[in-house]
């Protein structure tokens, strides 16, 4: 089965699948999509926003077509993963993403969401400059168990570490309750470096989990 898996760079044509990947990865196995809960927007509006953001292809943050690799099995979509090197041009992904969401959602929705966003301060984990960031890891249900996520992540690490000399580690942020993902990343060599928990009961209404962790792995360069 493994020989039928191919990995390639995503293009604009893949946007509908990338949108599925972003939303499903965001849910972390629950039914909560934080973009909808935090900004009080419905699924239709979120689809529209993700489409618009992906069309802009803004680098340095996860919602960027150029940062995605896609895995296919027999020419069918099987999985996706976004990765980039943090703050390579000086701007941190959190600020770039804040700019994007502000622009597409508008100041009214963003200002209204400020209280919800403040609740997240306790579990906010900062990404490190020059570290490879892995986000939106998604494998369609029928293709799980084939090692596809591992292959895409590894390919992202290889590509980014070979083209960016300053890179020496990989980071991934996930909900603590996402056991399957946690174990898979552990197998790949990731270790937990930061764990944050919120005692605020409102958090559970907004996010898949009230705990978040950062896992890290050193990059072993192949050149």
């Amino acid at each position, binding site marked *: 089965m493994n020989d039928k898996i191919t990995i390639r760079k995503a293009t604009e044509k893949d946007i509908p699948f990338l949108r599925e990947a972003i939303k499903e990865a965001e849910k972390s196995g629950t039914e909560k999509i934080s973009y909808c809960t935090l900004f009080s927007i419905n699924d239709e509006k979120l689809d529209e926003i993700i489409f618009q953001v992906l069309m*802009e292809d803004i680098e340095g943050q996860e919602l960027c077509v150029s940062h995605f690799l896609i895995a296919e099995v027999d020419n069918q979509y099987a999985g996706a993963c976004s990765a980039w090197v943090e703050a390579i041009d*000086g701007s*941190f992904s959190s600020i770039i993403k804040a*700019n994007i969401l*502000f*622009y597409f959602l508008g100041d009214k929705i963003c200002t209204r969401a400020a209280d919800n966003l403040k609740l997240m301060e306790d579990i*906010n984990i900062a990404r490190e400059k020059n570290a490879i960031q892995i986000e939106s890891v998604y494998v369609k249900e029928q293709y799980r168990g084939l090692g596809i996520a591992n292959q895409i992540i590894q390919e992202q690490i290889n590509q980014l570490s070979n083209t960016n000399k300053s890179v020496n580690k990989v980071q991934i942020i996930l909900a603590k309750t996402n056991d399957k993902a946690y174990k898979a990343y552990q197998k790949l060599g990731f270790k937990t470096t930061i764990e944050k928990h919120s005692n605020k009961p409102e958090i559970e209404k907004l996010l898949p989990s009230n705990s978040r962790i950062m896992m890290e792995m050193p990059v072993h360069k192949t050149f």
Partner: protein
Amino acid sequence: METNIIEKLNITFRKVFKDPQIKVYPEMTANDVEKWDSITHVVLIAEIEKDFNIKFKLKELIAMKNVGDCIRIVKEKLEN
């Protein structure tokens, strides 16, 4: 013009970050202000738009790597 923008930005920054001592300078980035995170950034951009009566384009927001870029973009918008 630039001095006026800086003075006005100082007022906006002091209001957003609730710090009466804060003074902006061209090289200043989010890393230089403790409370400048993604949440306060959104509030900051909204307040700058309101205080200067301007609307940023997406490419202008993305091009702002520091306060100096912001001053330059605000100046361009006010001149046009």
